[in-house]
């Protein structure tokens, strides 16, 4: 028996027939929809590599059963840039060397986008570190990640001020 669900994925509506209620959002994205940006690190909600936005909020996609998200709006790293124009957080990760191996990077970037949307950390390094603590980087690129998030956060705040 299949269970039909609908998702808006990176702005586009999708109708999906799930043949197994155990499929997590992460597995749906990676194995069924070909979106391999979100990574499977621990698969247990401890590392943050699978972070995506659901209804505008960052969550661990490895712990969400896809069947339970019927009707949700999902944004993954693949939906972040506008054509070739990188999202400010993506650009900042490159400018500040916010990665080494890159495995955790999609999760770090989606988490940073969520953090900036939450609007509580601003450019305060301590609040950014605390706000990003759900994303582990085993290369230890934290110094670059912090600078990238701080820079992007500042730029995006300015952009909002101007708007």
């Amino acid at each position, binding site marked *: 028996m299949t269970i039909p669900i609908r998702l808006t994925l990176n702005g586009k509506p999708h109708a999906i027939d799930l043949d197994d209620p155990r499929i997590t959002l992460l597995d749906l994205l990676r194995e069924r929809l070909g979106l391999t940006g979100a990574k499977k690190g621990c698969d247990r909600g401890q590392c943050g590599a699978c972070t995506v936005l659901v209804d505008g909020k960052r*969550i661990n996609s490895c*712990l969400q*059963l896809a069947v*339970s998200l019927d009707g949700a709006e999902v944004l993954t790293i693949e939906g972040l840039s506008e054509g070739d124009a990188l999202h400010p957080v993506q650009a900042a990760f490159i400018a500040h060397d916010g990665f080494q191996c890159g495995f955790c990077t999609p999760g770090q970037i989606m988490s940073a986008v969520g953090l900036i949307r939450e609007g509580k950390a601003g450019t305060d390094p301590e609040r950014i570190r*605390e706000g990003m603590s759900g994303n582990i980087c085993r290369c230890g690129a934290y110094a670059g990640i912090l600078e990238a998030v701080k820079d992007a956060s500042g730029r995006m705040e300015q952009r909002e001020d101007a708007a």
Partner: protein
Amino acid sequence: MILFDYTRASTVADALAAGRQPGAAFLAAGTNLVDLMKGGVTNPERVIDITRLPGLSGIEAQADGSLRIGALVRNSDVADDPHVAKTFPMVAEALLAGASAQLRNAATVGGNLMQRTRCQYFTDAISPCNKRQPGSGCAALGHATRIHAVQGWSEQCIATHPSDFCVPLAALDASVEIEGQGGTRSVRLTDFHLLPGDHPERETVLEPGELITALTLPAEAARFAGNARYLKVRDRTSYAFAVVSAAAAMILDGGKIGQARLAFGGLALKPWRVTEAEGALAGKAPSPEAYAEAARIALDGAKPTGEANAFKIELARRVAVRALTLAAAGTPARLPALPASPFGIV
């Protein structure tokens, strides 16, 4: 994860009927349940998705001054609610000291109360564990028990309850609204979780099929808003369970403590409220001596399960003194960058 039947409940009545079937589990965000299912720690045959139930997702100030928080409200939405932050600040501080931003965005109020212990012998799904498999024994006792209980434990189970949120809730006399076949009932949070005794497999007062629908903070709890703090000592500065934590609050009246509240996390299989220590603070001037005396009383009767966790008793005394000291200094207008951390600036 073993295969299960999935049902999406659209009314509370549907959920209650489905939840009474054998092997049923309610699914809210799943941040704990799905994790345990992946590890084979719990293997429900039926998963009842309650995320669409109407009327469980609001935070409402009641006419009598109490605050009702629906069971499906996300942890981050409780912590960020302006009324909660202003009126029950240590509830917000405790929530923000727990888990990660991603988990807080998903995890619900009811799920937080229902989360299982992180005892490593429970979560490994292999070791003997009376909680997971009644009668199989306790692999923790006599082994690696640095994180285990020093209050209220039994020979059958020495695990602790992992919640931060529940600690200030216990201190503030919160109550849990429960819906069942017989109607609605209300249970004090301090009575909701059960100590292990001879039946560690029974963790709460919920009967099979009963559902948490809301949490209520009484109007009286708002009187502590000006002097209320949560302090959490953990193995790393963020994203770790408490080794020991404390919620401390007081009402200051003419230079004296009118009333005090004190509860601990990390000490027992439930949030550990210490009303005798609270009583000892009443009428005293806020002072290091008064806090030390209260901390001494609070840990009366504490007993480690072995050498590994004996340190928790003295640590808990010190956490209590520091939390009371911070509470007396006044709730900060804005939470520190590192909520509840001893390394915070405030």
